[in-house]
């Protein structure tokens, strides 16, 4: 309850700031129009005009909400203008990339922890991979996956999302899988445990808290990756593509609505991952605090 109050206070402050900024930024256009028409603008006219322009520099919050409402609830889901349709495409890319990233991250972390050669060869590349701007790599990934005959854009987009999301998982899992201390490992040695026993019974369960912590970062990275992929692969569908279209065709409403839809979707994803984490923690005997 206390949390909610704090959040609502911040939101209210932001909304107030936003309205102020919208009036200021959109007033230029209002004054220009008035000057051309040779009329004077009263304060109340100024307010109502800056709140209701069809192509404002900065749309007021209620305009964005209206646009979002129109493009989600009132539009049929099959329509290309439906944010739900566009969002579902981005969501699909995100989830594919997220899943791919988890598999890739866990697999390479396992190799790195279990073998010295893996540690020496894989880790530097994993680090280097994150220093290359994904925007530069995107076209190459598209061309390569086209050459490989994947047909749709979904595969290269998912690869780009995975490219960003595997890294947090990898780093956390390397830490998590090596978290058991010498005593824990000695204990298993006294049982005559095999390497696979050590991995499945000790290393993997020990790494779970690290894994879940990384999922939250990773799902956000996958989402950003999916949007960036849509922006940089000249995709025509998805929230990223919607933003691009909005900006290119001078439709700020579309752009802002897509932006908000993206933010809401990302928040939902992170919330879901958080819930999943909480359930898993309880199943693994965590304190219910």
């Amino acid at each position, binding site marked *: 309850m206390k949390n909610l109050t704090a959040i609502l206070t911040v939101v209210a402050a932001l909304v107030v700031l936003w309205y102020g900024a919208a009036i200021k930024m959109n007033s230029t256009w209002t004054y220009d129009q008035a000057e051309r028409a040779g009329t004077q603008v009263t304060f109340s006219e100024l307010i109502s005009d800056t709140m209701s322009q069809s192509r404002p520099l900065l749309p007021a919050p209620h305009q964005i909400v209206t646009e979002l409402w129109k493009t989600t609830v009132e539009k049929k889901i099959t329509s290309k203008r439906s944010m739900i349709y566009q969002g579902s495409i981005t969501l699909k890319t995100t989830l594919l990339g997220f899943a791919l990233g988890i598999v890739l991250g866990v697999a390479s972390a396992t190799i790195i922890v279990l073998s010295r050669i893996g540690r020496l060869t894989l880790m530097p590349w994993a680090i280097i991979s994150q220093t290359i701007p994904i925007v530069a790599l995107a076209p190459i990934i598209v061309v390569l996956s086209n050459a490989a005959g994947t047909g749709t854009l979904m595969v290269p987009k998912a690869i780009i999302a995975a490219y960003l999301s595997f890294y947090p998982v990898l780093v956390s899992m390397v830490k998590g899988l090596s978290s058991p201390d010498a*005593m*824990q490992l*000695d*204990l*298993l*040695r*006294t*049982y*005559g*445990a095999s390497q696979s*026993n050590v991995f499945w*019974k*000790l290393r993997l*369960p020990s790494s*779970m808290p690290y894994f879940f912590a990384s999922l939250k970062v990773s799902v956000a990275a996958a989402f950003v990756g999916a949007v960036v992929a849509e922006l940089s692969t000249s995709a025509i569908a998805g929230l990223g593509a919607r933003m691009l279209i909005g900006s290119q065709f001078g439709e700020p409403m579309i752009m802002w609505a897509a932006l908000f839809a993206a933010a809401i979707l990302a928040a939902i994803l992170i919330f879901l991952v958080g819930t999943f984490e909480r359930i898993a923690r309880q199943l*693994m*005997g*965590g*304190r219910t605090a």
Partner: protein
Amino acid sequence: MKKPVIDAQGVDLTFQTNDGPVHALKDVNLEINKGDFVSFIGPSGCGKTTFLRCIAGLETPTGGKLTVNGISPEEARKARAYGYVFQAAGLYPWRTIAGNIKLPLEIMGYPKSEHDEHVRKVLELVDLSGFEKKFPWQLSGGMQQRASIARALAFDAEILLMDEPFGALDEIVRDHLNEQLLQLWARTEKTIGFVTHSIPEAVYLSTKIVVMSPRPGRITDVIESPLPKERPLEIRDTPEFIEIAHRVREGLRAGHDA
């Protein structure tokens, strides 16, 4: 004469470190018979833990001969001859107490149908019946350590090796656990190797006290305890007890001056 369970002849161990070789154990000779309760006592760095780890096959001596049940410690470890209790309980937080005790059973491939029976039996031995479904964090430190002893007992190893198992507990809990450990030892007739810093603990528990001294780690005295097997806590106020404790203290001082 029957053969000793653990037989050390001139055991040497030198660790190669970045600062040059460290002589951890020098010419250690010791025989431990079946059913003995042997304490290793000495200051830090005297090699008592190292020697225990050698017996358990966790370290390999660089010289001398060490056998357990007539075979090498490594083979004995693979034959699951030991239960090992560490300084920290080290229970898996994601497993219940029963789950933790089943861990060695799972690894050693005991049939699933027998697991619950083993758990019930050893929890009763350490007086923790009814705590099967609890998670480790729901137990006190002393109870956690008892659960870890139960875990070491679960697979019926003949030898129980304990490395300062009560070192992190307060004295009241410690007394209580010492008492319980003696009862457990009397009931199970296991051979126990016990590393400790505490003179009263060593004297109270042991049939044989091994006094060690550091640099290099070696045995300075082996005391066969004349105390009866039945030992109430009050025995610590008897003249016999005080005399043995005195001898242990002398042994420790001699090793320190040398």
